[in-house]
């Protein structure tokens, strides 16, 4: 419940802001406003400066990078670093798309089933099982990397895309289950009871009632998982190889080989950031809701 309260608070349904009801317009209030805006702008510069430098550099020729100020926008912007970076990242970006789509669908579907069961059904040891499930969110992956590496090799999935999909699915389930349990808790029990009395089984109730009435929740978790898996690097490094390397690993390898060509590296970073940026701009509301639901683990 708490998840929803905070999430909706951010989305504008909560209480208003501190100054809404206070008397505006006095001189001291105006001074405060100017001060606040100045601070906000200062912080905006702090958060955006690295991106600006990356953008300007990614639009320059290699020789231009060496002689111009990195913050100056190029006099004649070029897209050639983007083409060069894409040529090198093409295959890893495709791998990333496959891994991310597979891992997202797998973890969201399985996490959703868990969330549904733990939100709406009581069974033996349900609290204990749920606690164990959610505690897995806090697992430091270093404590299971060796067994994971051995398991994936034994399954013949080392250096394969299905291997990475499997791993992302497994480690994504706990967070998805937690988020879904919160969202499904808001589906009225009477709806489910009514459907049960009409002779529907849990699976039909899940597909005909719970899923259709929680579309926003599904989108939220999908967006959250997509960005998490897309951004991930450790598993790609451990069980990915030349044939299944995600773009995160490929970008990092580029750094090792092209130490001087910052423009290509920055363009590569932009390629890697692009899907997340698109989601952030198009579905920022859902992403933020996901961050808040993810944060509720501890509050």
């Amino acid at each position, binding site marked *: 419940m708490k998840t929803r309260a905070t999430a909706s608070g951010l989305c504008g349904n909560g209480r208003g802001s501190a100054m809404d009801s206070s008397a505006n317009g006095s001189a001291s209030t105006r001074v405060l406003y100017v001060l606040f805006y100045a601070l906000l702008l200062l912080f905006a510069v702090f958060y955006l400066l690295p991106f600006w430098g990356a953008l300007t550099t990614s639009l320059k020729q290699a020789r231009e990078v060496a002689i111009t100020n990195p913050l100056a926008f190029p006099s004649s912007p070029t897209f050639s670093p983007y083409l060069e970076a894409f040529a090198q990242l093409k295959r890893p970006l495709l791998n990333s798309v496959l891994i991310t789509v597979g891992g997202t669908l797998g973890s969201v579907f*399985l996490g959703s089933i868990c969330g549904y069961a733990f939100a709406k059904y009581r069974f033996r040891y349900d609290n204990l099982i749920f606690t164990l*499930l959610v505690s897995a969110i806090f697992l430091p992956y270093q404590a299971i990397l*060796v067994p994971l590496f051995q398991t994936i090799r034994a399954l013949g999935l080392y250096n394969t895309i299905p291997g990475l999909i499997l791993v992302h699915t497994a480690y994504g389930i706990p967070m998805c289950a937690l988020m879904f349990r919160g969202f499904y808790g808001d589906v009225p029990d009477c709806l489910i009871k009514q459907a049960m009395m009409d002779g529907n089984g849990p699976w039909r109730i899940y597909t005909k009632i719970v899923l259709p009435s929680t579309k926003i929740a599904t989108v939220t978790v999908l967006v959250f998982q997509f960005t998490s898996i897309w951004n991930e690097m450790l598993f790609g490094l451990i069980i990915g190889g030349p044939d299944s390397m995600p773009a995160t690993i490929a970008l990092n390898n580029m*750094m090792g080989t092209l130490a001087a060509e910052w423009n290509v590296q920055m363009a590569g970073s932009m390629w890697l950031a692009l899907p997340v940026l698109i989601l952030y701009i198009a579905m920022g509301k859902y992403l933020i809701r996901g961050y808040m639901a993810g944060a509720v683990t*501890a509050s």
Partner: protein
Amino acid sequence: MVGFLKRNPLLLLVIPLGLVFYFVYVGIGWNLWVSVSDWRGLNASYGFGGFGAYIRMIGDSTFWISLRNTLLLFTIIPICIVLGLVLALIMDQGLKGTNLFRNLFLLPFALSFVVTGTIWAWMYNPSSGILNSLLRLIGLESLTGFWHTSQQTVMPSIILALVWQFSGYVALIFLAGIKSVPQSQINAARLDGASQFKIYRRLVLPQLKGALTTSVVIIAMFALRSFDFIWVLTGGGPGYSSHTLPIQMYKETFMSSRFPYGAAIGNVLLVLVLLLVMPLTYRSYRR
């Protein structure tokens, strides 16, 4: 099959719970055994081999550097909390464009550590990087430095970059906490003649405990798992100066094939999570 599932719907849980049970809990047990196994070199071996890996830690100066750096990353927590709280309070003033600023502040958190690590490598590049160029441009030549390429400044550089990445998120959590204080309480306090400052101090801040715990837990988890960003930015260098436990674990295990030692370092991280992070979450689970 369908009928069977209909009568026993809980069987659907077997797949997800089985995956998590195997990949998390079996993995933890297996890893505990690896750390005391007689596994030497590349080929796995599971006989008992003694506690050599843990004894090795005591005399391994790299381990102590890694542990110290891992704990050093916890300084991100108070910095992010102060910064996040200030930003959240400013964003609570109902200024026009607040949502735009909030989205800008949160942007670094949305991106991959690989992207931000690559960008910060260019930020910190000593010869022609963004930060040194900027400092020269505004006449602060004396502040230019070697940042992540010097043993003295590498950890502060990493901490500054991670504050940049996390503080917007902490601000978001605090802002949500502030917004969830009931308006009726605030109106009542205002009727009693309380000033805005007093309302924040007496009424709002005490209700931010949950947001505070959340922030601490999330940043602490990232600190204990700190691999991607540091691996991309410094690879643990120069020398061993920015090794953290996850970095050392990776190098020992997958670059030097010391599997029991790597497993043991992983177990130390697990213990740190159990000691430092889980107690904070336990109270909230019970509620």
